[in-house]
């Protein structure tokens, strides 16, 4: 069956394929380490924000506690390596599993709350997680954990000083989250989740189970966030609660999607492409004295987007109405 939905989805897949090729080829010609670093972080946060978007955008459950799943992913993968000698290329999937599980555990009580109360509950749960890890000696407490330097290999997901392999790992992560969102959009789940977001009463009158829809979205979102956390830990080589679990990560994960367009395929990518380079540039130019300036810039951008383009930057590119008039 060929109609505006199938055509749109085919078009999206082709654009994504094209962008992927560009993202594979272009970095081959970039030698500048700072530029590569910015690209890596942008791709990572594009993926993380897409993971957030699966729950917050498609299912409409605004989480401000994703730092918890992010941090748990990086801790699980790191500790499995340090204490269990399990290579990070395997450990990161354990991190993903724990991230998904944690999202389910948070969702079990919190999805009984609606609207703002769910968002508030996730902030609190995120802070509890942060404080627990800060005071838990087995996981390094406030001192944190160093990831031992190993022979560069794909198994260890360590590549010495070479940034390009990291870039491709992060690119694969970003592409996987995009593909997951694309698949969800076209599936029974995606339709149910969007219905839950728009109108719960109407959704359940059509046989959509609200609670299990939210739980499924949370599990997928948490798992990808945990995976991203594991990759981030490996990239920076050292983790402590402040660097992977602090509340501002929750904001940083949600912001690209909010800026780019909530509940859209391209919103998180577009948002990350704008936000992360700006954040990195402002902090590298301003150094320690500029701490907080990037946050002021985010604030300004959010206000501008909210006033001028509430559907996010992505809506600038959208035709007004697709399909037959």
């Amino acid at each position, binding site marked *: 069956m060929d109609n505006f939905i199938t055509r749109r989805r085919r078009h999206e897949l082709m654009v994504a394929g094209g962008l992927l090729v560009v993202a594979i080829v272009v970095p081959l010609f970039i030698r500048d380490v700072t530029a590569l670093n910015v690209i890596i972080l942008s791709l990572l946060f594009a993926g993380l924000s897409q993971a957030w978007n699966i729950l917050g955008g498609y299912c409409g459950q605004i989480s401000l506690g994703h730092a918890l799943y992010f941090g748990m992913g990086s801790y699980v993968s790191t500790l499995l390596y340090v204490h269990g000698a399990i290579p990070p290329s395997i450990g990161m999937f354990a991190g993903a599993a724990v991230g998904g599980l944690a999202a389910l555990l948070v969702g079990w009580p919190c999805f009984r709350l609606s609207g703002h109360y769910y968002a508030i509950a996730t902030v609190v749960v995120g802070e509890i997680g942060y404080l627990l890890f800060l005071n838990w000696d087995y996981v390094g407490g406030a001192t944190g954990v160093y990831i031992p330097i190993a022979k560069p290999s794909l198994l260890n997901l360590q590549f010495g000083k070479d940034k390009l392999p990291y870039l491709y790992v992060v690119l694969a992560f970003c592409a996987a989250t995009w593909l997951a969102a694309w698949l969800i959009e*076209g599936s029974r789940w995606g339709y149910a989740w969007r219905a839950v977001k*728009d109108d719960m009463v109407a959704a359940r009158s*059509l046989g959509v189970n609200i609670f299990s829809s939210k739980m499924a979205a949370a599990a997928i979102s948490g798992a990808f966030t945990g995976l991203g956390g594991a990759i981030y830990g490996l990239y920076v080589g050292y983790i402590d609660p402040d660097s992977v679990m602090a509340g501002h990560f929750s904001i940083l994960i949600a912001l690209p999607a909010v800026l780019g367009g909530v509940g859209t395929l391209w919103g998180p990518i577009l948002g990350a492409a704008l936000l992360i380079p700006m954040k990195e540039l402002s902090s590298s130019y301003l150094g320690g004295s500029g701490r907080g300036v990037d946050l002021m810039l985010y604030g300004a951008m959010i206000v501008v987007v909210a006033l001028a383009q509430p559907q996010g930057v992505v809506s600038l590119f959208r035709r007004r109405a697709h399909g037959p008039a």
Partner: protein
Amino acid sequence: MALLEIDGVSKSFGGVAANVDISFAVTEGEILGLIGPNGAGKTSLFNAIAGEVTPDAGEIRLDGAPISGLGPVACAERGIARTFQVVRSFDSMTVLENVMVGAFSRAGHAPVAMRAAQETLEFCGLANRAGRFAWQLSPPEKRRLEVARALATQPKLLLLDEMLTGLTPTEAQEGVQLVRAVRDRGITVIMVEHVMEIVLPLVSRAVVLNLGRVLTIGAPAEIVKNPDVIRAYLGDRYAAA
């Protein structure tokens, strides 16, 4: 044969009795009107049939099996679909996607759901709006969209909550034709209306509620002559005349 049996259903909200000991049966293939003045308990009874509220007492049976208290999702699975008095559309989705949400309750895969949704839109006269967003529709089109979405779940019983209220006479006539076409497909319909002149020509029987109780049940011609009904709608002065 009775598709739906309502047996002694009562429901109170706080101290207010919305439904008191309501009993009647709905025959398969009929259009039943549920009428009564504002506050008679029509919507509340509707919500009980759709599983949205659990009755305090009594039982509701579909095909002989009790359904009261199972919740809206289970009721939808068993074949009860509904529309809402205040239109509830999925505004971030297109018209076709709205209907696909309903179609997915019977279809496992997107292409199957899409085909079913497309057919339902054609049946409801909305095929030329498939690509519009739900919020772009006019009020009568939104009502039709709700009917289409409900029909896409392939129900046995369709509950229409004031589907014709607030429409112009022409729009209401188109709505009446749609309801008849739905019945001709073999779907039993219960419609809540408080505008009697629209609903009475359409229904085979009507249940009149007043102050939470069944006032009378009967064919439209009997209903309009019933002094109790006239009193409930217009007051004592008119009943005497």
